[in-house]
């Protein structure tokens, strides 16, 4: 029910033109207001606190849809922030909230959150400062854009005296949740890229027939579909636990698997679109640019695979089969 309602809002308001506008400085206030006023930021907030009380599994298709529409706003992050702030006396502030899985203090005492997702437009940030969970007001920060074309990431620097509000010691959950959100967004954006590429290959004619009729092209699309299927089911795993926050190991696998697929999926899509695929005008770039960014955001597959490897090595006598079976101890049936 929520999924359909949100899907409709995204189809109506999160158009490719709107995505481009946000990348050029628009703040998409109509789209944001629609989602905020509709109560959709409270999807993970418990019912006793007037939220929708959804499970992680129930928000997964919604986070997937955000990726499929290249949603240029930190909506998933704002939803997650409310779950991360579950035990706080502070009500989450109104406005766009994003997540910074990494932060540190510079030598001069400034607090830095490097390349925070949606850092260019977030009003507030939930920050993991060495395990401490901090809520910071982004209007007090200096924002430095990454300089990557169209990117909405920014590095934020808060002055020495900006302490933020300390909310607890569950700071590491910020990175987990942010990584899980990225995994879902990658899977969604890949589904869209696959659909676009399939459609194009059925339409584009060369040598008197649709290029999708050439076996070499078909096989590339088949492999692309395999990568999309493997990514999606891996992302789903991060949202399969009954807990409030995605499981650590499942998230590591989800972020690693989806990130691993990005180079091949984006390369295949662009190869098959030919020159038109790299133009600003074609919507494909809205997805492939994001896929590249999301792959490295909160750590690439190398980071997360390293954690998965460590987890296996830490368990003597446990074989690969047994290990993968117990990633989520009690998956909902």
């Amino acid at each position, binding site marked *: 029910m929520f999924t359909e309602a949100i899907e409709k809002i995204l189809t109506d308001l999160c158009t490719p033109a709107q995505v481009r506008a946000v990348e050029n400085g628009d703040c998409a206030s109509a789209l944001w207001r629609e989602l905020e006023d509709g109560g959709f930021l409270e999807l993970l907030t418990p019912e006793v606190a007037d939220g929708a009380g959804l499970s992680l599994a129930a928000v997964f298709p919604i986070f997937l849809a955000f990726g499929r529409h290249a949603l240029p706003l930190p909506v998933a992050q704002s939803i997650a922030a409310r779950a991360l702030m579950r035990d706080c006396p502070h009500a989450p502030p109104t406005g766009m909230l994003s997540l910074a899985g990494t932060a540190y203090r510079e030598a001069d005492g400034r607090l830095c959150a490097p390349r925070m997702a949606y850092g260019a437009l977030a009003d507030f940030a939930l920050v993991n400062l060495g395990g401490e969970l901090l809520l910071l007001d982004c209007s007090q920060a200096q924002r430095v854009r990454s300089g990557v074309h169209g990117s909405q990431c920014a590095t934020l620097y808060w002055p020495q005296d900006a302490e933020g509000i300390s909310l607890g010691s569950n700071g590491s959950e910020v990175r987990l949740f942010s990584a899980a959100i990225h995994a879902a967004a990658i899977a969604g954006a890949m589904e869209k890229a696959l659909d676009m590429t399939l459609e194009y290959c059925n339409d584009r004619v060369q040598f008197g027939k649709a290029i999708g009729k050439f076996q070499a092209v078909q096989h590339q699309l088949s492999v692309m579909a395999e990568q999309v299927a493997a990514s999606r089911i891996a992302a789903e795993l991060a949202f399969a636990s009954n807990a409030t926050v995605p499981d650590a190991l499942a998230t590591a696998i989800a972020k690693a698997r989806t990130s691993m697929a990005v180079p091949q999926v984006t390369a295949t899509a662009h190869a098959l679109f030919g020159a038109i695929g790299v133009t600003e005008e074609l919507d494909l770039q809205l997805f492939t640019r994001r896929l590249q960014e999301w792959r490295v955001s909160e750590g690439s597959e190398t980071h997360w695979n390293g954690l998965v*490897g460590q987890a296996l090595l830490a368990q003597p006598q446990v074989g690969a089969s047994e290990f993968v079976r117990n990633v989520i101890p009690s998956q909902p049936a």
Partner: protein
Amino acid sequence: MSSLLDAFRLTALPEHAEAFRAEVKHFLAAHLPRVSADVRARSWTGFDAAFSRELARRGWVGLTLPQAYGGAGLDAFSRFVLVEELLSAGAPVAAHWIADRQSGPLILKFGSDAQKDFYLPRICAGQAFFCIGMSEPNSGSDLASVRSRATRCEGGWRLSGRKIWTTNAHHADYMIALVRTSGAPEDRQSGLSQFIIDLKQPGISIRPIVDLAGDAHFSEVAFDDVLLGEDALVGEEGSGWKQVNAELAFERSGPERFYSSVVLLDLWADTLRRNGASAAETALLGSFITQLTSLRNLSLALTALLAKGESPVVEAALVKDIGTEFEQAIPAAIAASISADPDAPVDEELYRTVAYLNQVAPTFSLRGGTREILRGMIARGLGLR
């Protein structure tokens, strides 16, 4: 969204299947032959009739066949668990593998009552091992072009022709063969039928073929005017193609399509635990686990469809293609890793296991349909053909 991918949704194993796992583990602890990892890496090409009969004594050969025939009457989920445990232990399952996975279910579905009464109890008892006669010297991927031919005669059929690459033909009691019963090779899929052939009868010669690793797991089988009774035909005359395809989802979606290198993976992980692992080795190991988790969930999603009686043939082709690519990548990457430093000592068992798997890894994406054929099927499923 392309509907082909809709089948792949996270699915949990039901409790009864997980409960069954403990029994299988218990059995393996007592009965798994104590052999080195490079032998265990043969897994579903490792032949050990005594081991298969031990499984049969527990009802675990023909696991999904009805109890009336001596089967365990368990579902596809339980079979997933059994197969997963057997393969990850490197158990020698080749003797009964084909009968359990394919021949038994095929006879149950298409066989006459007499055929079911005769073959199924023998399969379940581990007394009837089967092989599949599809490929011929001139018919590989283009299976519909088979030339072996059975012609009607008084009281049955006369069969002439040749089959090749037939796994275990030289150990098996019976072959289920796909042969032409009418028309010519140009008639393609029509005019093909399936027969159950007792391999001990006269006119059949079987020549094992040695592979590049020194093993003889497949054979060439020649039929020289072999007399088959009326009761050798399984299913309907002319329906061979349809019947062969009915089992493809079972054949291609299971754990055997991504567990072929798991014995090596575990051995390598043990070595890293003992000797310490670099960051690169840890991440490589993690990447295998990451991929395996995803593959297992893809396969489980199809198991749920099989349990419901559906036949996700194209989806199974997808799992097999990405799964075999994964099991091929493991020995290739581990070989590079363990020999990265020529001055470092290498464990001999690990070295042999890697070497064996790199020799045979090409077969992973040949047996059961080649990569190119599977990708063509997926493309059709995506609406491109």
